């Protein structure tokens, strides 16, 4: 991927972490929903500029963990998180950290496409405008067009940017949501089962897109489809009953899992 946009240059100028260094590091993370202990002692490193997938049966805590990374769980009043999560070595649960800026740096794509009921342009422009990323209308236009291009949506919608985002097909809507997420130049993009509401063709397009975005962003994806995890991710983490069972390179997890439960799950014996 090589787009000559100011946004990307800006990112390229940022100090490059060591290639194998972890972008996101979690240590002994526990999550409680009231009395329920939803996530138990999870420790994992998420490498920079790679796709990490979280797999596991329903209710295993993988989405809960994903939502810890941008503190989306804060919006649930009864939720309590302990342990440390750091991004670039900085604790994101530090009380001095502004959670809103964190969420701008850690973008999120949801299970069900949720564009704002506004025009396609406004959907993408909302974030940059909110953070004052563009000084002029032309600059904003540029960000919108580039984001749509990088979400592989621009060619399909370039003639109807002012039409409602909710009028697009499901796959297009999800790509619009991805464009919206990348428009604010996040470092990490969290995807919570982004293809579960889509047909196979739209899914293939999104997977292709994820693969392209990998060169610029750190991506974490939660998925129920083991094939999808195998196709798009470099690293895979398997969750079961709120615990992280096994984490490793995708190839290793799918060909040579160390844990019996992982083996059972990927061969379809339960879950």
């Amino acid at each position, binding site marked *: 991927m090589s787009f000559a946009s100011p946004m990307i240059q800006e990112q390229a100028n940022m100090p490059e972490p060591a290639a194998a260094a972890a972008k996101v590091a979690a240590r002994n993370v526990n999550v409680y929903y009231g009395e329920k202990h939803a996530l138990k002692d999870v420790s994992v490193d998420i490498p920079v500029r790679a796709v990490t997938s979280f797999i596991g049966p329903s209710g295993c805590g993988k989405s809960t963990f994903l939502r810890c990374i*941008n503190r*989306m769980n804060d*919006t649930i*009043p009864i939720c309590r998180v302990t342990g440390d999560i750091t991004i670039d070595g900085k604790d994101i649960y530090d009380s001095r950290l502004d959670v*809103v*800026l964190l*969420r*701008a*740096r850690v*973008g*999120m*794509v*949801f299970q*069900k496409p*949720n*564009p*704002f*009921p506004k025009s396609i342009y406004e959907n993408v422009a*909302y*974030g940059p405008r*909110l*953070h004052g990323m563009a000084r002029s209308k032309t600059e904003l236009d540029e960000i919108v067009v580039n984001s749509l291009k990088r979400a592989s949506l621009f060619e399909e919608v370039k003639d109807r940017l002012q039409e409602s985002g909710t009028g697009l097909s499901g796959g297009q809507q999800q790509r619009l*949501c991805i464009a*919206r*997420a990348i*428009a*604010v130049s996040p470092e990490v993009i969290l995807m919570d089962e982004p293809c579960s509401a889509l047909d196979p063709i739209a899914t293939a397009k999104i997977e292709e897109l994820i693969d392209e975005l990998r060169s610029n962003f750190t991506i974490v994806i939660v998925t129920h489809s083991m094939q999808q995890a195998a196709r798009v991710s470099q690293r895979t983490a398997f969750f079961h009953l709120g615990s992280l069972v096994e984490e490793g390179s995708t190839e290793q997890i799918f060909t040579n899992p160390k844990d019996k439960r992982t083996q059972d799950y990927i061969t379809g014996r339960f879950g």
Partner: protein
Amino acid sequence: MTDTSMTPPAPGIRTFDYGSDEAQARVKRRYQTEARFKLYGLLAVLFAGAFVFILLADIVRKGMPAFFEHRVVLTLDLDASLIDPTGRREIDALRNGDYNKIVMDAWRANFPEVTQRAERRRLEALVSSGAADDLRAAVIRDPALIGQKIRFPILLSDDADLHFKGLSSRISSAPGTGALDVKINGREVELSGSGQPFAAILADVKAGLMQDAERIGAELARLPASQQGGNNAALDARRIELAQRVAELRRRAGDVGSAETIDFSSMPSRIVRAEGASIRLQEIGASSAKGFLLVAPQREISRIDSWTVATFATPESNRKASDADIAWLETLNGRGAIEKAFSTRFFTSGDSREPELAGIRGALIGSALTLLVTLMVCLPLGVGAAVYLEEFAPKNRFTDILEVNINNLAAVPSIVFGLLGLAMFLNFFGLPRSAPLVGGLVLALLVLPTIIIASRAALKAVPPSIKEAALGVGASHQQAIFHHVLPLAMPGIMTGTIIGMAHALGETAPLLMIGMVAFIVDIPQAITDPGTVLPVQIYLWSDLPEVAFQAKTAGAILVLLGFLFVMNGAAILLRRRFERRW
């Protein structure tokens, strides 16, 4: 998967025959129950629809006369010496002109034979006291009229208006037979003719007497039977009196051909009309009659060839318009001087003790000012409260209690809010009585729970995914609410607000408590002026004894219903227009 129908049922699993007679009967019963339920629903809808239709039709029928008024068009001599003796055309001088004399002179000129004081007063009462005000307004608008003779419509009084609207007495008219000799002596008239011209009328009178006799006979029969040895002298006297009257009436009715004297308190009046004259018959024989000249003929007459006789079914003492009143009005109508016109006055003038002058302008403006205050207080407070409670407030025992209380407030009887307003706004804060400001505040208290509940429902209906999407791109909680959730909830909030306002528009009881029930002629100019509102105006008018106010009441109800329809229509339109499918 194997084909289940091929495998025998496993032991322990019950089989059930859905084709058995019993099962079939159950299906049939189910169909019957469903059909019956559908029928009940249909009947209920038809029943309700019929009632709504009857109600509306009745109000429209009663209310339509309020939108029209009758006027007599007269040629007025705008004598400068009466209006503006100084000739300087100063507005104060023009205001003080004697317009009443101009109107009354022109009005009396129609009936020069009316000279007697009492009769003249009756004649003058047929013109509304507002007629001179109309003329004054016209002259002040255009002082160039002074000194001219102009054709000007003069408003009739409510009794005259009711006569033309057909609400006073049933009048039937029949052509008279044969020519009549007329002898006029002052206002006394003698009519005679060969061939018994009055025989038919006399027979009619006698038939009326017979009916009276039967009616009184029935009354006599209803009196309690006399008791043996009883000493109820009053009852006995009454019985004797009634029996005598019945006998007398029967004798008169049976005596065909004898002349009759009309008793105007109990018998229909009969008016002979010919050559522009109206003569009320007093003594009727078969071939001659004596009468009173109500309206003089336009020329000297001694013989009339064609004439009609009008019968006013209601006896004179039982109606507001006298025989003379009706004769005058009908004479003018015959001359083409009466016009029926749309009553803009109904919408442009305030309340009045004279029904023909009363309008709903004051109430409309009062309602508008009151609703304005209500809206200004309610919308920001209600929406703010709803947003806070729904999106920001911590969920704890206190907010739970608050929520229950808001829901309960919506069910508090409205008069209680009126008492609260009286105690708080009038007695404690000392705000002016009868003012739309206080009315609006009281109604705001009343509507606030409705708006809060509707707004919270609208906010809750916005899917959380929208808020999450906004949070996901780095919007703060408040930004997510104000940029996305609130705009999406706005149609729902507006719908709730309009319905709340419609509720406030129709509210009467709380406003009675804060004195908006006073009789106020002036149209309120500000929210602190005394005023009233449309439903209270309806309540006030419905209480008045004048028949003409009944039409005004129904007319005002029609206007109120019109506003309510428009407001509810707007709410439905908003809902349709902005309804979203997520």
